């Protein structure tokens, strides 16, 4: 134990993973932080292994992936793991962000922690998009074409920018090579951001379901939350195994088993399920430029949460109206996911527009407004009484 507290490196491990004081009342929803860490580690291990066999060339990419699936020992396992963990990575990040929104973890003093988290999410989206292009099936090629083309909506320099990204006049060999290079690089950028996220977390420690200071009642991370996180890991591996071994292609699109063909457009071009809500927001707006702004804005708007939340209470456990609205936001997000998977035709266009409007209204209108209403009601209820604790 002495070494653990004296050695300059072990002391860090000790303060982050062993003796770190954690609130005594955090629930299983707090497991998603460590689960996301396990996803990143799994993705890097499987990804580096896949990179040993993958060939980043438009003529060889698809064949090399099939070579991994058929001829490399357990190659199918490595690739199915990589593809399915990507899905769980996003499922977990949505639950992790949802937890922060519900319990007010984004609020002071954790605004830096929140902002780094949003950057992590942005880099995750980019990394996942780049990775989906690499097998170079039909959906890889056409997804890459559609998404990169969006940047051409930027006035004046759009077309030049898109050609710069392509390294040519269409998605080709140069594009695939740079996407591969960046897809290899970005996970390590993510790793660095995760370390920053942990440093920012360490400043004040975890939030808790009550949203009040936990300084009075904390327990060491080990053995309490190390063992609680272990439960999360095994449940995750159990569900992951069901997908990898029994339903490996359920979350993917069959078109990506057709080699990329620039001469033939697929009947519908859809992203992976975890990016569908943003795809729905993109298509809700008829103007291409505004659609792109809305899509990017729908992620960037998370940065403003600490400014927009006017409530004096942190956790939704004590905010009945906000709680209702939060679940409305969740349902809305699920509907957007579904709309993103549908053809852009009535009635899906109208539903998508309504849901996109609600998505932005949640942040810009409802969050500040409900906070004010709840503050006022609380003031009225305690007016004149000795319990009116919020008098300034």
């Amino acid at each position, binding site marked *: 134990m002495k070494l653990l507290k004296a050695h300059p490196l072990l002391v860090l491990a000790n303060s982050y993973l062993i003796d770190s004081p954690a609130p005594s009342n955090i629930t299983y929803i707090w497991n998603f932080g460590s689960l996301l860490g396990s996803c990143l580690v799994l993705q890097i291990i499987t990804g580096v292994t896949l990179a040993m066999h993958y060939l980043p060339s438009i003529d060889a990419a698809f064949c090399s992936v099939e070579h991994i699936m058929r001829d490399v020992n357990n190659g199918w396992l490595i690739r199915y793991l990589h593809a399915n963990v990507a899905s769980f990575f996003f499922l977990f990040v949505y639950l992790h962000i949802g937890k922060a929104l519900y319990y007010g973890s984004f609020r002071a003093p954790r605004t830096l922690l929140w902002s780094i988290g949003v950057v992590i999410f942005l880099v995750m989206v980019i990394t996942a998009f780049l990775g989906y292009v690499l097998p170079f099936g039909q959906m890889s090629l056409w997804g890459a074409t559609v998404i990169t083309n969006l940047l051409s909506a930027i006035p004046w320099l759009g077309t030049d920018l898109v050609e710069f990204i392509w390294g040519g006049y269409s998605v080709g060999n140069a594009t695939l090579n740079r996407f591969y290079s960046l897809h290899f690089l970005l996970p390590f950028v993510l790793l660095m951001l995760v370390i920053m996220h942990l440093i920012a977390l360490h400043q004040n420690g975890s939030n808790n379901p009550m949203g009040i200071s936990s300084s009075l009642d904390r327990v060491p991370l080990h053995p309490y939350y190390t063992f609680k996180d272990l439960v999360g890991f095994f449940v995750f591996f159990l569900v992951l195994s069901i997908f990898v071994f029994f339903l490996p292609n359920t979350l993917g699109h069959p*078109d990506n088993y057709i080699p990329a063909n620039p001469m033939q457009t697929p009947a519908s071009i859809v992203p992976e399920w975890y990016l569908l809500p943003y795809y729905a927001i993109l298509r809700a707006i008829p103007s291409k430029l505004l659609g792109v702004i809305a899509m990017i804005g729908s992620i960037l708007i998370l940065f403003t949460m600490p400014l927009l939340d006017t409530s004096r209470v942190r956790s939704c456990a004590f905010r009945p109206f906000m709680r209702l609205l939060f679940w409305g936001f969740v349902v809305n997000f699920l509907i957007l996911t579904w709309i993103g998977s549908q053809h852009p035709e009535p009635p899906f266009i109208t539903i998508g527009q309504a849901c996109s409007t609600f998505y932005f209204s949640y942040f810009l209108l409802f969050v500040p407004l409900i906070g004010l209403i709840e503050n006022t009601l609380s003031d009225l209820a305690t007016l004149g009484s000795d319990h009116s604790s919020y008098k300034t």
Partner: protein
Amino acid sequence: MTSPNSYNTKVVLATSLAAVTGIGFYFFVNPIHANEAEEGLHPPAYPWSHKGPFSTFDHASIRRGYQVYREVCSACHSLDRIAWRNLVGVSHTADEVKAMAEEVEYTDGPNDEGENFQRPGKLSDYMPPPYPNEEAARASNAGALPPDLSLIVKARHGGADYLFSILTGYMEAPAGVEIREGLYYNPYFPGGAISMARALFDGLIEYEDGTPATTSQMAKDVTTFLAWAAEPEHDERKKMGVKAIIVISILTALSVWLKRARFASLKSRKIVYVFN
């Protein structure tokens, strides 16, 4: 008075229920699918012998299916990603596969004189394609390109069910449906007009194991064969999956027990506020 946590649980349950009901209604109850003609008739779910989590391929069916592919499909469709060696221990013995491979001539070389030469096939050779290139394939098929079948089961919505439905779904075009010259009506094909003519007819081939070669029997066998071609790791994958589930289930149970043991003191403590 309900605690915030049980309220949360209720809301989460209600939300999930609403979402699942909505999606379920749309896909399973709602009879109106706007894109039926465009996306093709939804194939029924067939009871494949390899469908369940514990079931493996019917290898006798793979063997018959290979025969159907060889005698019928391979006239137009390639199977580029399957080598002769892949059949060994799956549908045929090593000697049988060697004999089949040797019947095909492959171009190899160059030899010491710098000349390419013809030699009989080896286990490491891949299935011979019916056409030398895409142009030749299109020229022989009125402009249509017969797709490679190595991944066809994974590359189509509905997988094996879709393939079986296509092979057995040919019929007269209903009144009012115009089919262009050289195309055939098949309701399971997106758009309804397919370039491939019906290929399987009762008694078309003679199975070496004596199974009556009906249209549906051949369709079933060749679909099983192609399902194997798309996922040759299938049997091994499920076997490994069962082991993984058993091991991880035990570890999960163990970790829950450990966690509860660690938290026991924390959960059963009493916090008392002593006034003064």
